[in-house]
């Protein structure tokens, strides 16, 4: 009996040791990998690297569009990083990419049956976004829209329900909109709600997402 307990304790210790070793290896890999990556990024850039630079900018922009279109993904952070990297002119690229990304999420919400969106998000392990779609699935149009405004101050909700276009502008610029999935989440919900025609949504998004890129473009910030 005592021998079995000792063997079990030894096995637990061994497993802990393996886990600890694995943790150390992961930390060391991140450290060495990070140093290597920093070294790669710090190499000198000459005109011969022009194509590579453009490819990197294009890659970052596509990543931004992708992350911005998916609910609960940190798209806006990538967008800000690209704007800072490219300077004032980059604001125009990010602005157009934002409108494109939100249009994609709107179309996904409008065209795709909710259970397929759920499956896709689960496949990507985006369980939070999948839960949001599940939450929306049984709701009617008005209820779906109302869900959008739940994070807004309660006094504003009746006003927002009456002025749904203005509401989208407000929600897209509300700091707490990450709780309902950020820009991508708002686009999917707006698409699923079937309350907004596509052209109207594009117009709203074009206006609502303009202020920050405009401030960057005119070098106010």
């Amino acid at each position, binding site marked *: 009996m005592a021998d079995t307990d000792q063997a079990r304790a030894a096995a637990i210790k061994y497993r802990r040791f393996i886990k600890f070793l694995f943790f150390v290896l992961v930390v060391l890999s991140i450290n060495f990998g990070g140093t290597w990556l920093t070294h790669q990024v710090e190499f*000198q*850039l*000459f*005109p*011969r690297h*022009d194509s590579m*630079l453009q490819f990197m*900018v294009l890659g970052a922009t596509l990543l931004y569009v992708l992350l911005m279109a998916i609910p609960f993904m940190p798209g806006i952070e990538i967008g800000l990083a690209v704007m800072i990297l*490219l*300077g004032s*002119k*980059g604001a*125009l*690229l990010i602005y157009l990419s934002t409108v494109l990304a939100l249009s994609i999420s709107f179309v996904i919400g409008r065209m795709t049956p909710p259970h397929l969106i759920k499956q896709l998000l689960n496949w990507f392990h985006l369980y939070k976004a999948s839960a949001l779609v599940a939450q929306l699935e049984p709701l009617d149009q008005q209820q779906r829209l109302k869900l959008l405004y739940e994070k807004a101050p309660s006094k504003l909700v009746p006003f927002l329900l009456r002025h749904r276009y203005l509401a989208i502008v407000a929600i897209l610029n509300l700091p707490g909109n990450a709780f309902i999935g950020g820009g991508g989440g708002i686009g999917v919900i707006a698409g699923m709600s079937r309350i907004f025609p596509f052209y109207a949504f594009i117009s709203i998004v074009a206006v609502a997402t303009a202020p920050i890129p405009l401030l960057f473009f005119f070098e106010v910030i």
Partner: protein
Amino acid sequence: MTSRQKINIFIITACWFLFINPVLGLDPSRLLDGKTFTGFNGEKGQPLDPDEAEEIVFENGRFISTTCNRYNFSDVAYSASQAGDSIHFQAVTLSPTHGKIAWQGTVRGDQAEVTFVWTKERWYWNTHREYWFQGSLQQ
């Protein structure tokens, strides 16, 4: 004035422009003609990059960077001026694909120190990077 006198004046004037003027150095654009400097480029504030071998050539009043020539930066007329034992020069090379490079340098003896700025404008992003070159006269 007779025809003979006219011909003499023409010959003297032609000789002045062809031989004497360049020798006296009155044409500032040609102070560095015939010189080729080889060395390396580096980004401003960084060491010279051993992978970025450069050759700058002054020939017939024109300047060319052989490294940048690969990226469609063609040869251009350069301007130069003498200051003591140094010669300062300037040139701006253009490429239809890679933008513009503004060159500014000093040649002292058989050594050249050059700074250059690469700019390329796009609708979504401007490239503006500063570099330096250090090279010695190719014998």
